[in-house]
C-alpha cells in the first residue's frame, strides 16, 4: 500500500514489520521521530515488543546487546553525539557477533552545536565492525531496514541503516508499505545461533587470549567479505517479492560516462537531476551512489568505474587532516582497478544545502581541471569568514 510517510516513520514501520522484540533508545534530534513512533507502537500493541527506557545512548546499546545476547531481534537508533557515546558498545555488539540493527540519522557533531545533516558521525564508526548502509529516500529506508535484519542475522554482524538528517528523516514522500504477511515470508523469525540460556550456562563475550583473538577478528573480516554476495542474494529475494532492489552501489548512466560523480545519501537524488540536465546539454555525465560503505564494495566500484576518465567524489563529511572520507576510501579501493583520477569535494557539512548548483560545480571543476588537487576541495565555503 503506497502511502505518505516521513523518512523516520518509514524506518519505524520497517521495525514494526520486522517484529522486533526489544527496542531501546535514548532520544536525540533528529532521531527522535523514529523512537517516538516505536514507543507508540510498543504501547498500543501494534508492535509486540518491549521498549526499554535508558539514561544514555551507551546504555541503549548495552541494553540491546543484552537483549540480542538473549536471542531476540533488537533495534536502536541514534545520531551524532549519541552515536559517539555508544562507541565502546558498538565494538562490543560487533565483536559479540550480535545481529543488532540500528538507524543512524546523520547529524553534525558539536561543538558548535548543529542539528543538521553531516555524515562524519557515522563514518567515525567505520572501524567498529558494523555494516553501514546509506539510504537515499524513504522507501529505501524501509526496504533497507528489512534487508538489514536478514543480512545481520546471516553474518552475525550488526547493521547501521543510515539516513540524512531532515533531508530524509523529516521529509514526507510516497512509500510503499508492504503487508505484514509478505514481510513475514521474507523475514522469518530470528533463529539465533547462540544465546544466553540459564538452562545451558556458558560464558559469552569473555576473555580471548592471544591464542584465539586474531582468529576471532579474522572471523569478523571473513563475515564482512561475505556480505556483498549475501546482500545480492537477499536483494534478489526482496526484488522477487517486492519489486525493488538497490545493490551495494547504484550507478546511473555510467556505462558511457566520461565523468562520474560518486556520492551517497540524499545528495545522490539531486545529483541525478543534474546528470539528466548535463546529458540534455550533451555531456557524458554519470552518477555512482555508494549505498554500502562497510564493507566497502570494491568489486562493484571497479566494475562501474572501469571506463571512466575522471571520477569526482562529493563528501558530506570530513576526516580532518585527510579530507573527504568516501574519496579516500575510493582511491584506496581503485588500487588494482581503473587508475582513474579521483577529484575530492567536500560540501554540505552541518546541513548546508547541496543544491543543483553545488553538483554542477563538481562536474564543471572536474571537467575543467587536468589533475585532481592533493587536498579535498571545499565547495560553498564563505572564505571571507576565514580571513
Amino acid at each position: 500500500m503506497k502511502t505518505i510517510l516521513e523518512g523516520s516513520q518509514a524506518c519505524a514501520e520497517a521495525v514494526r514489520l520486522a517484529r522486533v522484540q526489544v527496542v531501546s533508545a535514548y532520544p536525540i534530534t533528529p532521531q527522535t521521530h523514529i523512537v517516538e513512533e516505536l514507543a507508540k507502537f510498543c504501547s498500543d500493541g501494534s508492535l509486540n515488543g518491549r521498549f526499554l527506557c535508558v539514561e544514555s545512548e551507551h546504555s541503549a546499546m548495552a541494553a540491546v546487546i543484552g537483549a540480542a545476547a538473549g536471542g531476540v531481534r533488537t533495534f536502536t537508533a541514534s545520531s551524532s553525539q549519541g552515536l559517539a557515546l555508544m562507541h565502546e558498545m558498538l565494538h562490543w555488539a560487533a565483536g559479540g557477533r550480535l545481529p543488532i540493527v540500528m538507524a543512524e540519522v546523520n547529524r553534525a557533531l558539536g561543538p558548535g552545536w548543529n542539528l543538521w545533516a553531516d555524515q562524519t558521525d557515522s563514518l567515525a564508526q567505520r572501524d567498529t565492525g558494523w555494516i553501514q548502509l546509506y539510504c537515499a529516500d524513504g522507501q529505501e529506508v524501509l526496504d533497507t531496514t528489512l534487508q538489514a535484519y536478514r543480512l545481520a542475522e546471516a553474518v552475525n554482524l550488526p547493521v547501521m541503516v543510515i539516513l540524512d538528517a531532515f533531508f530524509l528523516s523529516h521529509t514526507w514522500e510516497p512509500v510503499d508499505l508492504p503487508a505484514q504477511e509478505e514481510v513475514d515470508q521474507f523475514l522469518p523469525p530470528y533463529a539465533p545461533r547462540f544465546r544466553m540460556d540459564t538452562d545451558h550456562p556458558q560464558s559469552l563475550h569473555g576473555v580471548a587470549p592471544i591464542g584465539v583473538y586474531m582468529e576471532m577478528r579474522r572471523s569478523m573480516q571473513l563475515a564482512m567479505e561475505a556480505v556483498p554476495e549475501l546482500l545480492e542474494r537477499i536483494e534478489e529475494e526482496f526484488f522477487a517479492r517486492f519489486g525493488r532492489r538497490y545493490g551495494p552501489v547504484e550507478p546511473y548512466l555510467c556505462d558511457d560516462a566520461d565523468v562520474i560523480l560518486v556520492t551517497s545519501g540524499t545528495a545522490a537524488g539531486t545529483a541525478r537531476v543534474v546528470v539528466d540536465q548535463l546529458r540534455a546539454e550533451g555531456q557524458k555525465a554519470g552518477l555512482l551512489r555508494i549505498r554500502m560503505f562497510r564493507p566497502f564494495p570494491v568489486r562493484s566500484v571497479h566494475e562501474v568505474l572501469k571506463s571512466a576518465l575522471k571520477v569526482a567524489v562529493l563528501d558530506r563529511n570530513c576526516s580532518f587532516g585527510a579530507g573527504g572520507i568516501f574519496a579516500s576510501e575510493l582511491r584506496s579501493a581503485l588500487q588494482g582497478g581503473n587508475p582513474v583520477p579521483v577529484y575530492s569535494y567536500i560540501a554540505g557539512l552541518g546541513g548546508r544545502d547541496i543544491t543543483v548548483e553545488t553538483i554542477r560545480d563538481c562536474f564543471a571543476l572536474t571537467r575543467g581541471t587536468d589533475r585532481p588537487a592533493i587536498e579535498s576541495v571545499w565547495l560553498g565555503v564563505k572564505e571571507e569568514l576565514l580571513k
Partner: protein
Amino acid sequence: MKEFRFHGRGGQGTVLASIALAKAFFQAGYWVQTFPVFGSERRGAPVEAYLRLETTKIYLRSNIYEPDHVIVQDARLINLVDVTKGLKSGGWILLNAPGLPADLAPFQGFKLACVDAAHIALEHGLGAKNQPITNTAMMGAFARLFSNPPLEAVVEAIESEMPIKISENVAAARAAYEAVVLHGQVNGSELLPSAGPIFRKAVS
C-alpha cells in the same frame, strides 16, 4: 514540477498543513515531497515548510529557493520575513488577511488571493482570538485557488491527519474554500483579474 513555500508561525499547524496537502495531492495522483525548514522551534517564531509536486518520482532533495507560489498563514509575518523571496514572477500569494492589504507594495508583480482564515477558524472554534489555528481553513482556500487537490481529497486528508475537532476543521476548510477571494495580479495600485492556475492532470 510545482514548488510551494508555506510561511507560518510555530504552533499554527503550518507543517501539518503542508503534510495534509501532500497527502491530498498524493490521493489525487501526484508524486509529492514535503519537509519543514528545521530550526530551533518556538511557538510564535516564523516557520517554513516546502511542498513539491510532480507527476513522476521526485529525486531533487535540496531546499526550495524559487517557489512557484507561497502560502502565508499570518499577514503580519510580512513585516518579519521576506515572503516573496525567490517567488517566480506571476506566482500566487495566498494570504490569510481580513481583506485586501492597504499596502500592496510587497506584492508587486505577484498575484494575490486573500482569505480571512483567522475569522473562519474562530467561527469554528479553532484556537483562541490571539492564536487562531488557521491551517485547515488555509487548506480549503488552497484547494479553491489552485483547483487542486480536490476539496474532497482535502477533507479526507484533514480527517486522517487532525488529532482533534475533525468536523470543525472540515467545516472551516469548506468555508474558506467558498470565502477565498482571488484579487489577481498586483500591478502598481491596480489589480489585474486573474484566474487561479490549473495544474496538469497527474500521470498515474
